[in-house]
């Protein structure tokens, strides 16, 4: 019985997780053809060469890093005060507060994004309100800003929950001790609360950063043509250019780049124990 419990998920993972990634690696070395499927297996370094040589891809990587970084920071700025406030709320209310944070997540992110489209459009709600004050219509759709708002909107719970987990487990007595020793509220926060919450900050940031690097839908719907993230480029290579090997090579490169921060973090987590 015990063996079945381990074998079942293991075989599933082997077939549906390990094998596919191996195939991606194989196709990354293939050549694009006009056949079905549109590639011929072989040992072709051309895709990787293009990745490194062509400034477009390097630029995309850089841009995605920026997008992911700014998104994490944005989620942190909005989410940290909320997480902290919830830990200081009366015990009976905390469940409700947390549920309110997660509730939007259950309604599906595409629909919520359409709300933002409605808000940000040229004839959308924000511009309507602005118009009431005689202010000209602001061009908000298809901008970097719109994209960031969308990402923050969708990823906020992923920042708040780990932060809350870490903050709610903290020893409040430490803050009280600091206050007792003469530290004002701001100092208490900077010298005690913030440093001790860093593992939660890192966890939340990783949960936002890594998926944001490969985000496709939000830049596509809200961002402009300039918001070419890795997700959009990969999608484009695959669906528009029918260049599966290139898409695969890009995927491999993304994995290598992304595995690094995650790997380091996992390693440190293991060491912490």
């Amino acid at each position, binding site marked *: *019985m015990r063996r079945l*419990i*381990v074998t*079942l*998920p*293991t075989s*599933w*993972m082997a*077939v*549906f*997780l390990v094998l*596919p*990634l191996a*195939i*991606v690696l194989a*196709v990354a070395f293939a050549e694009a053809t006009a056949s079905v*499927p549109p590639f011929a297996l072989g040992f072709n370094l051309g895709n990787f060469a293009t990745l490194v040589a062509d400034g477009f891809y390097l630029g995309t990587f850089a841009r995605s890093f920026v997008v992911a970084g700014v998104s994490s920071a944005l989620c942190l700025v*909005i*989410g940290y*005060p*909320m997480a902290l*406030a919830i830990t200081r*709320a009366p015990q009976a209310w905390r469940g409700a*507060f947390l*549920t*309110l944070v997660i*509730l939007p997540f*259950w*309604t*599906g992110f*595409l*629909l*919520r994004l*359409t*709300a*933002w*489209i*409605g808000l940000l*459009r040229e*004839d*959308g*709600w924000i*511009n*309507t309100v602005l118009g009431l004050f005689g202010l000209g219509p602001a061009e908000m759709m298809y901008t970097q800003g719109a994209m960031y708002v969308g990402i923050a*909107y969708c990823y*906020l719970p992923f920042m708040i929950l780990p932060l809350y987990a870490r903050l709610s487990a903290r020893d409040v007595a430490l803050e009280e001790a600091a206050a007792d020793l003469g530290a004002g509220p701001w100092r208490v926060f900077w010298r005690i609360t913030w440093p001790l919450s860093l593992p939660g900050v890192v966890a939340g940031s990783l949960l936002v950063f890594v*998926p944001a690097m*490969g985000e*496709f*839908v939000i830049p596509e*719907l809200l961002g402009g043509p300039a918001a070419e993230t*890795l*997700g959009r480029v*990969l*999608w484009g290579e695959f669906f528009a250019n029918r260049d599966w090997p290139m898409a695969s090579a890009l*995927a491999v490169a993304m*994995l290598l780049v*992304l595995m690094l921060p*995650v790997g380091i973090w*996992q390693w440190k987590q293991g060491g912490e124990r």
Partner: protein
Amino acid sequence: MSRRALLGLLLPGYAFLYLPIALMVVFSFNDSKLVTAWSGFSVRWYIALWNNGPLMEATWLSLRIAALSATMATVLGTAAGFALAHGGPFRGRGAFAAVLSIPLVVPEVIFGLALLLLFVAGQALIGLPIERGFTTITLAHATFAFAYVAVLVQARLADAGTDLEEAAADLGAPPSVVFARITLPLMAPALVSGWLLAFTLSLDDLVVASFTGGPGATTLPMRLFSAARLGVTPEFYALATVVLAIVALALAGAWLARRVAVARESAVE
């Protein structure tokens, strides 16, 4: 913390989260197609939604895929979570945990691409899957979601500790009885929330379904996405309101059920 300061920190965040939703609900009842002007209360968009054949079809497909993949994910995730929590240091445990975390960290585009290539290779080499569509999307979603379920199950089991299972064994229950009468009931909350999470993840997924689906299998997110690119109409808002209502009802139901159970327990006294 003072009530004021508390609200001060929370209100802006909640406003950010809920203002768009509130606007959607309000304007789903707007008679005008324009999302900026209010021209009277109307349910025409809900009727249009109901009559929207392709959208309803896509919804039905998505629900079926979600239910099936959630169930598969729950079975797989429970086994994986159990193996990690109670399996002890079995051989390859590190690799097991590492591979299990892949769906949690890998971007959806890569995940979708990888699975599609798997299905293509399968079709070329062994003739399976016969066509891409319902089955392939379900398999992909199950794979994606079961990692989340495993996390929930493992956390719950780690939290509960081994005491209760040891006590049951101490009292003469063989391992299968321990699992059935002690472990499973204790895991039940994690299993339920795991299923719901897997269901939502599947229902919400666009990227993986786009990669692993095929002609004839258009899911709700896929329909919404192509429609959204053309232009957002209040029909979207109607759909969003309906979903919100269902979720709110489900939550209220769960909350009520809890209250009833608690009341029943204290009435025993």
